[in-house]
């Protein structure tokens, strides 16, 4: 029983984690909490669906093109909406992404309507793994694996490339980074592109288990933020584990304490954790001389 609940929680948690990683890439580098991340991912997923269903491409091609589309979408949005706001109040940029959230949602509604679609998954018919007597769906295992691969790739990219170094510099201190010759607008564009790309992957992986409609991501977005805060927003692996922990905590409180208060209890746990560790479980305290 408890093993089943934990596995189910992990499955939900890794959906949060996918979105959470995309959010944190943008948040860490640009300071902007992107409320449009979910809807950007939703549009990318719909684009992939259209490529398969409308154009007739096979899964792999459609998904690869859609992921590139996600990257381009992120860069375009950054250039049009975020770039003019660099250096302005951060809250203005956040509210702009909130507006973007509404725009993308109604745009998708206009193009694809409000019915639900079934998004195909190549693993839909593979039998579930049996680990210690518990059935684990292939989708969940793939999601967790892809999440870890993304984290490893991002970490390697941020640690060992010049671009990564400049992105990290921009995230630490924009003024000093600019003095060192790092272009803030460029690093912000790269961050948004990467966010769009990872978000697109997240959407495509999430869509088979939830149904594809225009509200695909709205439930995940807040949960992803909450899980990220729980784990600590300045470490990717922290966000990943925070989101997994959130999924498990929700399932366990729902089953053992009170199904109707599951959400509330989860948030109480988060608040309690934050009271003890204000930067999240894995977060490092940023020392600010200000």
């Amino acid at each position: 029983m408890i093993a089943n609940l934990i596995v189910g929680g992990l499955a939900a948690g890794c959906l949060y984690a996918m979105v959470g990683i995309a959010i944190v890439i943008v948040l860490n580098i640009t300071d902007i909490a992107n409320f449009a991340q979910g809807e950007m991912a939703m549009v990318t997923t719909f684009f992939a669906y259209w490529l398969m269903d409308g154009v007739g491409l096979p899964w792999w091609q459609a998904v690869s093109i859609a992921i590139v589309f996600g990257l381009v979408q992120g860069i375009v949005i950054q250039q049009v909406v975020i770039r003019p706001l660099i250096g302005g109040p951060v809250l203005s940029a956040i509210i702009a992404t909130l507006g973007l959230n509404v725009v993308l949602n109604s745009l998708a509604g206009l193009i694809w309507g409000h019915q639900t679609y079934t998004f195909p998954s190549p693993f839909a018919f593979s039998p579930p793994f049996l680990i210690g007597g518990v059935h684990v769906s292939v989708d969940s295992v793939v999601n967790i694996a892809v999440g870890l691969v993304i984290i490893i790739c991002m970490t390697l990219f941020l640690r060992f490339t010049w671009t990564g170094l400049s992105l990290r510099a921009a995230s630490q201190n924009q003024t000093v980074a600019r003095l060192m010759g790092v272009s803030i607008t460029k690093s912000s564009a790269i961050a948004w592109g990467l966010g769009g790309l990872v978000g697109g992957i997240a959407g495509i992986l999430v869509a088979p288990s939830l149904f594809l409609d225009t509200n695909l991501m709205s439930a995940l977005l807040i949960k992803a933020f909450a899980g990220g805060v729980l784990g600590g927003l300045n470490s990717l692996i922290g966000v990943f584990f925070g989101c997994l922990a959130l999924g498990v905590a929700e399932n366990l409180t729902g089953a053992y304490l009170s199904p109707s208060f599951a959400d509330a209890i989860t948030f109480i746990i988060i608040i309690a954790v934050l009271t003890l560790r204000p930067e999240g479980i894995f977060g490092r305290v940023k020392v600010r001389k200000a």
Partner: protein
Amino acid sequence: MSAAADIIRVPKAPTSWSWGAALVGLCFLLACAAPFGLNGYGLYLLTLTEIFALVALGLNLLTGYAGQISLCHASFFGVGAYATAILTQKAGLPYLLSLVAGALFTTAIGALVALPALRLKNIYLAIATLGFGVVLQKIIFEWRSLTGGGGGLALTAPQIAGYELGATGLYYLTLAFLTVGLFGAWNVSRGRTGRALLVIKESEIAAGSLGINAARYKVTAFAVSAFYAAIAGGLFAYLVRYINPESFSVGLSISFLSMVVIGGLGTIGGSILGAVFYVIVPELLRGIKDAPGLVFGLLLVTVMVFMPQGLWGMVRRLARRSAR
């Protein structure tokens, strides 16, 4: 939050004092005369705008001045609405008394929320307050014997001194509260507290070294802004005459925050402009087929991209340019 950039302190505008006062007076007179020129629905919208402006005023003290993000203001609004409604309908207290009592109760909750929030910043604070919002909304939902749960509460017209308060009466009551609220917020922002909050927003360390007790001021800011939201909630309950927990969701909290940012962080006039934007613009867009959401979202993005200091920042810039 890059602290220094959020509010650009404008050097005192060269527009003369009397012009500003005349403008405020004119707006007040127009607001007083409005019930005579509007139909029922127009009056409802105007009352709603004033109620939201009241919330935005309080939230702006917290977010614009003290720099603390809150995503639980919809719940303060909701607790105020429920407390007022329950005290009036079930305990039989007079409407005005229960309005104030409900607001004081919510103020206490606001101060309680502030305590764990003292150590948190930015997104962490946003998520923690969002958590409080979810918890409060859930308590309202599950406390069925008192609140009616998901079925909500239907309310009868409130009475003041035996006189039944209709739509026009409620409008004038709201206007009175808004006027007092404006005066209060203006005083707070101009006075010692407002200055202290601005310093805390810029740097808590600097505030500490100036002898400002940051913790105490932050709790005060949370409490005061919860008070504003609760009064607005008590008025809202009797404007719509039906409340249910769904009306006080996270989405509404996000809307309140957007009002403050669209109007202009750290400005009094901005709070009102933000509320007007949020109520009136969707109303104007209702005629557009298919895509009111699309146009509203686009407007939201456009306003932010072209006026990062909000609508009030734009107004101020135009006023300065015309005065030159």
